[in-house]
């Protein structure tokens, strides 16, 4: 189980840095590692969400050339928070998961911006919000919807195979 989580985190980060750039629409790309973190957190709880978030964040920090720890921290917190939600609100339906993922993207973006502000990040919050965070949240919503559907389909198929 842990190995599969690790592989998902590792694979998500690698795909983000190698494949996802070609999905760019108007300079905006989806944040696949964050989507993976959110989906894992929703299904496995805050510990898994936190660890996966930390791992993918660390990988992205390392491969992206930024400050090592910023994304690790923001994603770990985002994964943890997302993992706490199922105990408090009903998140089983895709119509809840997708807006939740978009909100998480916004929250994680603002958190990351806040962390970067500690290191004198030059851009304004308005610019980052309008040009980076919100478009990416929208894109994440679409990609997240596709991922949720794919996961549901995979579950259905695996159940059928079990019955046979």
């Amino acid at each position, binding site marked *: 189980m842990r190995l599969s989580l690790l592989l998902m985190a590792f694979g998500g980060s690698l795909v983000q840095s190698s494949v996802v750039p*070609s999905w760019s629409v108007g300079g905006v790309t989806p944040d696949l590692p964050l989507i993976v973190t959110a989906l894992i957190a929703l299904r496995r709880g805050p510990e898994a969400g*936190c660890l996966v978030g930390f791992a993918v964040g660390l990988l992205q920090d*390392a*491969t992206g050339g930024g400050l090592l*720890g910023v994304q690790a921290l923001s994603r770990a917190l985002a994964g943890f928070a997302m993992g706490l939600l199922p105990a408090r609100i009903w998140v089983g339906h895709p119509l809840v998961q997708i807006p939740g993922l978009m909100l998480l993207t916004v929250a994680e973006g603002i958190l990351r911006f806040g962390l970067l502000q500690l290191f004198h990040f030059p851009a304004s919050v308005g610019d980052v919000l309008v040009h980076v965070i919100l478009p990416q949240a929208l894109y994440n919503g679409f990609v997240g919807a596709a991922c949720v559907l794919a996961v549901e389909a995979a579950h259905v198929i695996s159940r059928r195979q079990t019955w046979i």
Partner: protein
Amino acid sequence: MRFRRYVLLLTVLLVSLFLLTVQTRGGGPTRAADLIALIVTPAQSLLASAHRGALGAWHTFTDWKAVRTENLALRADNERLRVQSLQVRETDQENQRLRRLLALRDRVPLRTLTGEIIGREGGGWARSLTVNRGRADGITQQMPVIVPEGLVGRVAQVRSGASVVQLLNDPTSTVGAVVQRTRTPGLVEGEPGGGVRFKFMARDGTGVTAGDLIVTSGLGTLFPKGIPVGRVTAIEDKGSALFHFAVVAPVVDFARLDEVLLLTGQSAQDFAGLFTPDG
């Protein structure tokens, strides 16, 4: 359980903050980042090259599809343009034919009617054309039918909307004619084989040779005088007979006619000057 959860979160946060602190103190990339990059970079480049390969294959496929679609469209275009070109050529040829026919019509001092060929009869028993001019157009039997090259034949049957034109090479066709150069009289008759002969040509001193032009004689008032009929290709002399005859190649290619001119009046004028060798 809950306690463990928050310990984990705290640990992760502390590790992250530690990494950040170390970096800011050191002023550059840390060894940890180097180590992670060392592990990640080969996998990253492998995935990137796989992605490039997949993307290349996809582009090849989409290019192939585009080329195939373009090819089909170009083939359709080519076919359409070929048909268009044929139509233009056909129209051009028709235009030329009609211009020549119109020019002849202007030259001929008779009332004429143009007729379009709508049917052909080419068997050995009869050789005829059906023209889209009939009784309603004032067409009557025996009317001469000509084209810019010369004589085609005569109207043999008249119907309400069409007429049947007996061709010169019909086995029952007979036209009074003369050799234009020597004025030797005779009869041009069709043959079952599709040929035309100039018969009843006097044997003595005619001097008719191959290449001589045979024109209508104007005798009998059926055909105006001087309409080209054909050229002599050979003389056949039976020796003992009173007459000999010439094999004639009609000046008109009956198989390639599309429009004709029907002469609806009579004239004593010699038409020879109205026809040129090239029609």
